[in-house]
């Protein structure tokens, strides 16, 4: 579905280096990383807003240089900014931008707005941040995209809607032909829903594989520090010690070889990010 090979992009002082990954259809991909890691740059590259200095991006087998229109027709976008015209109503915004999409369905947009509790006659500029995201999400869904790209979409949702939002995403990918890329800081949601994870840090791609690989490759090990230190150094990503013991992110191998006194568990995405970011400091 999405094939990114050796993509690099320099933007002022920031440099996104050598991103390579393949997200199959039917996957929800979590894109995580600290602020300034390059998440938005990568999304802009996937959306064709930026052109890569090096490397190639193919979406559903198509490339931007020759099939920009067809690619955009297949992408639904929700970015963490106001994409719609503030002085137009939600309905007018839908009509205004919907006319460019081959599969835009006005009734479906209205239905989603209704389900999300939004009045179609309201002006976009008068909505709260969460409502704006809901409106953009309704529009993104109503032109039947094959790929949804969502940047910081969940941050402004209330807990009720957030769970509804993830249900909709699950329904959306259920037929196995569509994919979602979700950039967020709320990693707990990704732990539950993501099938694929991309972790960026200071423009570097640290991890980009499916969640099964993620869960089988890393372990959080807690216990006495000297027992953790008995593990081969190259397997310890980072270890944090305190008065009561230590906790470390380690690269797991099939043999295990952990001291029986150590507590071993799969890491959450948040723990993974935490230890990786500490390692660099």
């Amino acid at each position, binding site marked *: 579905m999405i094939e990114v090979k050796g993509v690099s992009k320099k933007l002022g002082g920031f440099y996104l280096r050598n991103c390579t990954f393949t997200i199959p259809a039917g996957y929800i991909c979590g894109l995580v990383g600290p602020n300034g890691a390059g998440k938005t740059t990568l999304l*802009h590259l996937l*959306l*064709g*807003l*930026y*052109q890569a200095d090096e490397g190639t991006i193919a979406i559903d087998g198509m490339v931007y240089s020759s099939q*920009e*229109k*067809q690619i*955009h*027709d297949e*992408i639904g*976008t929700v*970015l963490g*900014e106001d*994409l*719609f*015209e*503030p*002085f*137009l109503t939600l309905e*007018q915004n839908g009509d*205004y*931008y919907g006319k*460019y*999409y*081959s599969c835009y369905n006005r009734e479906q947009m209205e239905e989603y707005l209704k389900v999300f509790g939004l009045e179609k006659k309201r002006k976009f*500029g008068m909505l709260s941040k969460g409502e704006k995201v809901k409106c953009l999400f309704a529009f993104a869904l109503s032109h039947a995209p094959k790929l949804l790209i969502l940047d910081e979409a969940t941050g402004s949702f209330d807990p009720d809607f957030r769970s509804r939002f993830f249900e909709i995403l699950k329904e959306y990918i259920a037929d196995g032909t569509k994919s979602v890329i979700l950039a967020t800081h709320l990693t707990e949601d990704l732990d539950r829903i993501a099938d694929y994870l991309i972790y960026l840090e200071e423009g570097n791609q640290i991890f980009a594989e499916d969640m099964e690989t993620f869960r089988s490759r890393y372990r959080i090990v807690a216990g006495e520090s000297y027992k953790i230190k008995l593990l081969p150094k190259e397997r310890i990503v980072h270890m944090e010690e305190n008065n009561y013991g230590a906790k470390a992110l380690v690269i797991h191998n099939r043999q295990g070889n952990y001291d029986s006194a150590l507590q071993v568990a799969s890491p959450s995405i948040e723990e993974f990010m935490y230890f990786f970011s500490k390692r660099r400091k």
Partner: protein
Amino acid sequence: MFRKYIRDYMDTYRLYYMKQLWGDKEKRELLFFLMFLSILLMLDLKGKGIIVLAIFVPMFLSFFSGLLRPIRPGKMMYLCPMDRKERRSYIYGDYYFRISLHMLFAVLGIGVIVLFFRCDMLSVLEILLNDFMITIYIMPEQKAINQWKISKEEQMKIFPQEMAIILNSIQAVFVVKEQGAVFSSNGDGHHLIGKGIILLVFFLIELPLYLKYRKYVKKELEDAVFFEGGAK
């Protein structure tokens, strides 16, 4: 087709730019200057309000359209399914439509003056030329709302518009004064020659500015085809 352009024209007025505009020191000074000039003219030219409106309404429409309707579309437009040719045609089409619409208002305004008041063709030409200069106006650096900054270099790019506004204001005074026969051109050959010389001087100042500005406009329009300005 025409209705579509009218709707797009109206829909893409970004009135919230006024807020940013007000926050920009240089632009605020220009706005204050324009307000001051308008009030002064309104007071000085009382009784000739129609002439003032016929000259100033199209001029301000062009000026504020240039400020509040950036030629660079919003981000969403770059995400909509369009190939480069279509996006280019959308951007150029919108720009040319804007110029045509504003010039139509300018011609209508001048038409009112020519039909109902005394006004020589030299003034008409000068006013229309200035209106054209104002309407081709492109605000620099409007890639994003939060990038509203005008450097000294960019100030020079909008200098032709500021000059055209001042010149049109002077012409408005001339036209109104003519009604009182202060500068009557009625059979006064010397006056016409004098006015012709002034117009020629204005024209010779504006022509190189226009030629320089034309290149800048073309570059801005081409850059606007891509979200990442200048990318090919």
